[in-house]
């Protein structure tokens, strides 16, 4: 992740990861999730869904931090994210004690 300043606890705290799930044929293509995703994970698809809308596709899955804004702002209950377990890295001096 990019930071505009490096947090003091960057070594201890890892940003969470998320996986985005989209029910493509429930989407009405309003674009709320795409526009307001703070990590710009999503993009409009080229193809239509069954209803004739362009649902979002996950363009940058690695950027998702599981904030849940897409889920909260979606009027159609068509998108949400779930946390991704991250492999425990060997922490040097993690927490100090």
């Amino acid at each position, binding site marked *: 992740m990019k930071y505009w300043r490096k947090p003091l606890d960057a070594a201890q705290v890892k940003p969470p990861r998320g996986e985005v799930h*989209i*029910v493509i044929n429930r989407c*009405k*293509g309003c674009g709320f999730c795409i526009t307001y995703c703070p990590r710009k994970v999503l993009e*409009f698809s080229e193809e239509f869904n069954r209803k004739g809308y362009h*649902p979002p*596709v996950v*363009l940058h899955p690695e950027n998702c931090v599981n904030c849940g804004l897409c889920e*909260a702002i979606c009027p159609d209950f068509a998108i949400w994210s779930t946390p991704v377990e991250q492999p425990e890295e060997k922490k040097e001096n993690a927490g100090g004690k």
Partner: protein
Amino acid sequence: MKRLDVTLGQDLRHPLEEYLRMDRIPHVWCPGCGIGTTLNAFLTAVKKSGIPRKDIAVVSGIGCSGRAAGYVKLDSFHTTHGRAIPFATGLKLANPKLTVVVFAGDGDLLAIGGNHLIHAARRNMDINIICINNFNYAMTGGQFSPTTPEKARLTTAPYGSYEHPFNVPFLVDSCGATYVARWTALHVRRLTNSILEALHHPGFSFIEVISSCPTVYARRNRLGTGLDLLKFYRDNSVIKNGANTRECDIRFQEQLIVGKFVDQEKPTYHDTMTEYLSQSVGKRYVPYQGPMQGKEEDGN
């Protein structure tokens, strides 16, 4: 643009599925409409509240917002136009254990149901109102409503509305509402928190949600898509918690004051009634025993 991965998420369940009638989804609301987002916020708040699902009842009136009751997997009542509040009043008084939520639109609550709104607020009836304000009657094709800002054009105001709209937070505040907030369909987190507070708030709570109506209101006024309306909310909303509700009126495409305006404690109708009667009637007073148990034999 990227190709569609049609297999994505098909086998997963939406986190709110246990609160939704999935056999009724997709809902009727247009692309870019804010009612779905508000329903999403409401159900998220219900989930967070810890109130058992069986103890929450949703009452709605008629119109676009009125359809909300049909999508929630709770005891839900789709009533007549404007009468959601008195129906909810009966429901609450006959079973005070219920948390009763009225989910209705601006035309429903403020025009045809205006009398019920002010009286429920006056009584401090312990019900929660979520008022979707999209500035028009959308289900019937976009007629002006009591909240339509002056100059906004709608089908029954083809040259622009010349009526003075309600300042809704001021109206309910002055009538005695004990929790008043206003958010837009963009402020999903704050809206969810407000609904959560309202669910736990004893007494009459009122949350006005400024909601996008791309199909009618925005189209008639050339304001763009639902997304454009959300962008407008982002650029023009000013959060003023505790603001004087008198100053919260909305003018056409001008600044929107949002926030939690009123949060005060006052005995509810039910509390006042039981306390007063137990004092004045004395030992002979028999408080309401709750509804019938639902187990009696019907003696066919």
